[in-house]
C-alpha cells in the first residue's frame, strides 16, 4: 500500500470495502452489534484513518498528532477495524468483539482498547470531549485537528447543542465534526422520530462553518475534509449524506439492521456482495 500522502482514491475505496467486510465478520461472529451505522460511515472512516489524519500507534502517548472521537459509539466495529488495519492491535483480534474479556467492547472504551481515545456510547457526549481536547491542543501550542464523528439521531441530545455553542464561542477551528446523516435511527426515519431539518441551518445559526457532502463518495469525502481542514476562525461541521447499511443490498436503508446481526444466510450474501470470502 502507498503512504497516506500517496494513497489513491481507488485504494481508499478498497480500504473502505475491507472495513465493511471486517464489520460484517465481526458482528456475525459476535451475534450482536450495529451493522447499519458502521457501514454508512465506512468511507469517512477510511478517508480519515488511511489518508487525512496524521496518526500512528507509536505516537499514542503524544498529543502531537491528529485526534479522533467516535461520538456515535455504536459504530465501534468500523472504528476497531480501522484501528486494527492501522496497526493498533492485530486484525485477528477483531473477531473477539463483544466477547467476555475482549479488549473490543460493544462500545469504545478508552481504558481497554489500544488507539481508542475516548469511551463513548451514551449518545451526544463526543463533541464536548472533542472540544476539550481541542482546547488542550491549543494550550499546548499544537496545530492539530480533532475529528468527531457524530450520528444524526444523536443530534436530538441537548448536550450536542451545548457543545456546538461552546466550540463557536471559543473559536475552536481545530474541531471538525462530521454528522453521519444516514437518516435512520432505531425507531425509524429521523424526520419521523424527531425532525432535524434544516440541520445545516441549525449548525450555521450556532456559528459553525457548514459543509455538505455525499459521505459514500470517496472523491467528495476527500475534497470536503480538505476544505474543512483549511477553514479558520470557527469550527466546521460536515453533514455527510450517507446510506445506512451501505454496501449490503438488504441492509441499505433498512432500519431493521440498525442493531441486529445477520444470520448465516444473510452473512454469506453480505460477504459475497462485499467481494469477500465467506
Amino acid at each position: 500500500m502507498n503512504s497516506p500522502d500517496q494513497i489513491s482514491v481507488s485504494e481508499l475505496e478498497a480500504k473502505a470495502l475491507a472495513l465493511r467486510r471486517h464489520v460484517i465478520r465481526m458482528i456475525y461472529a459476535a451475534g450482536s452489534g450495529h451493522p447499519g451505522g458502521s457501514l454508512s460511515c465506512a468511507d469517512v472512516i477510511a478517508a480519515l484513518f488511511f489518508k487525512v489524519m496524521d496518526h500512528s500507534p507509536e505516537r499514542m502517548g503524544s498529543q502531537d498528532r491528529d485526534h479522533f472521537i467516535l461520538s456515535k459509539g455504536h459504530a465501534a466495529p468500523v472504528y476497531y477495524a480501522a484501528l486494527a488495519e492501522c496497526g493498533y492491535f492485530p486484525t485477528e483480534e477483531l473477531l473477539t468483539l463483544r466477547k467476555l474479556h475482549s479488549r473490543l467492547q460493544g462500545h469504545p472504551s478508552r481504558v481497554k482498547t489500544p488507539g481508542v481515545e475516548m469511551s463513548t456510547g451514551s449518545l451526544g457526549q463526543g463533541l464536548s470531549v472533542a472540544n476539550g481536547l481541542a482546547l488542550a491542543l491549543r494550550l499546548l501550542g499544537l496545530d492539530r485537528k480533532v475529528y468527531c464523528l457524530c450520528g444524526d439521531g444523536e443530534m436530538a441530545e441537548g448536550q450536542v447543542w451545548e457543545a456546538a455553542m461552546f466550540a463557536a464561542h471559543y473559536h475552536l477551528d481545530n474541531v471538525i465534526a462530521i454528522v453521519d446523516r444516514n437518516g435512520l435511527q432505531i425507531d425509524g426515519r429521523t424526520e419521523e422520530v424527531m425532525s432535524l431539518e434544516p440541520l445545516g441551518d441549525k449548525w450555521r445559526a450556532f456559528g459553525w462553518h457548514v459543509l455538505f457532502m455525499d459521505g459514500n463518495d470517496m472523491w467528495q469525502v476527500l475534497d470536503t475534509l480538505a476544505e474543512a481542514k483549511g477553514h479558520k476562525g470557527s469550527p466546521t461541521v460536515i453533514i455527510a449524506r450517507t446510506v445506512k447499511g451501505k454496501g449490503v443490498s438488504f441492509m441499505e436503508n433498512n432500519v431493521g439492521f440498525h442493531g441486529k446481526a445477520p444470520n448465516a444466510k444473510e452473512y454469506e450474501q453480505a460477504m459475497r456482495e462485499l467481494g469477500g470470502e465467506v
Partner: protein
Amino acid sequence: MSWPMEAQRKSYGRALVDLGRARGDVVVLDADLSSSTRTVEFKGAFPGRFFNCGIAEQNMMGTAAGLAVGGMTVFASTFAVFATGRAYDQVRQSIAYPDLNVKIVASHAGITVGGDGASHQTMEDIALMNALPNMTVVVPADGPETYKAVLAVAERHGPAYVRMGRGDVPVVTSKEERFEIGRAHILREGADVALVGTGQMVAACLLAAEALKARGVSAKVIDLHTIKPLDVEALEKAARGCGAVVTAEEHNIVSGVGTLVAAALAERYPVPMERVAMQDVFGQSGESEELMREYGLTDREVLAAAIKAMERKK
C-alpha cells in the same frame, strides 16, 4: 468550644491559584458560578487556563473530560446539585468510566445552601458519586482541610469529587495537621463511643464529645473526610475500642456515609450504631442554622444518638 468561621470555598480559590502557579497543566472550568465557587480567583490569576462553560453543566463535564484526554488536570466546579445530578451521565460515561483526571469540586452542597430551597440543596450527591467505580470522594470538614484536599486530589490519578458547603463553617482543623486521602483523621481519642462526622458535622461531633465529657463519657471523634476509599481499618478500630458508633452527615440517610460505615462495620465488627442524617426528605428555604435544627443536624442530635448507642451496648 468556639472556632473561627470560614467558608470552604475561599480555601478552594486559594488552593487553585497555588496549584496553577505550581503546575502548568491545571485547567479550570465553571458553569456561570465562578464567583460563588471561587474559581474566579484562578480566572484572575490564569485567564488563559480558565474557561467559562455557561449554564451547561453536561457540556462542562464532557469538555473537562476532553481536556484530560489532552493531558490536562482539570477542575470543574458548580453547585453540587448540578455537578452530580444534572450532569450525572456525563460524569459517569465521560469521566469515571474512562478514568480521567477530572476533579469535580462542588460548592453549596447539603441543606445549608439555605434560602434557595430544595431545588438547590443536595443530600444525595455523596451517594451518586460514591456509586461510581474509579471515583474518589472527599468531604472536607473545613477550610484548611479543603485546601489540603484540593492539592491531594490534584496529585492523585483519576476522577475525584470534593464536596463543599456554601456558608462559613467552624475551622476545626489546622494547616499543620496531616491529611491523606483514604486515612480518617482522629481529632479526639475516647473509649466509650466513637463519633464519626463528615463535613461540617465534624464540628457538631466535637461539641457533642465535649457535652459527653461533662457527663463522664469519653468520646472518640473521627473526621471522616474521605468517603471513598473508606478507611475501614480506622472504623473497625473505633468500633472495637468504643463498642458504639454514631455517624453524622449533612446528607440523606439513604445511601449516605452512615450507610457505608454500617456496612463496613457489619462485615468487620458490628456494634450498636446510630446515624444522624437527613431523614429521606427534601429540604426547604430557611437560614442555614434554622435548617440544621429543623432537620436534626446539630450537636444535640449527635449527643442523643451517642447516648442511645451506648445504652444499646448492654
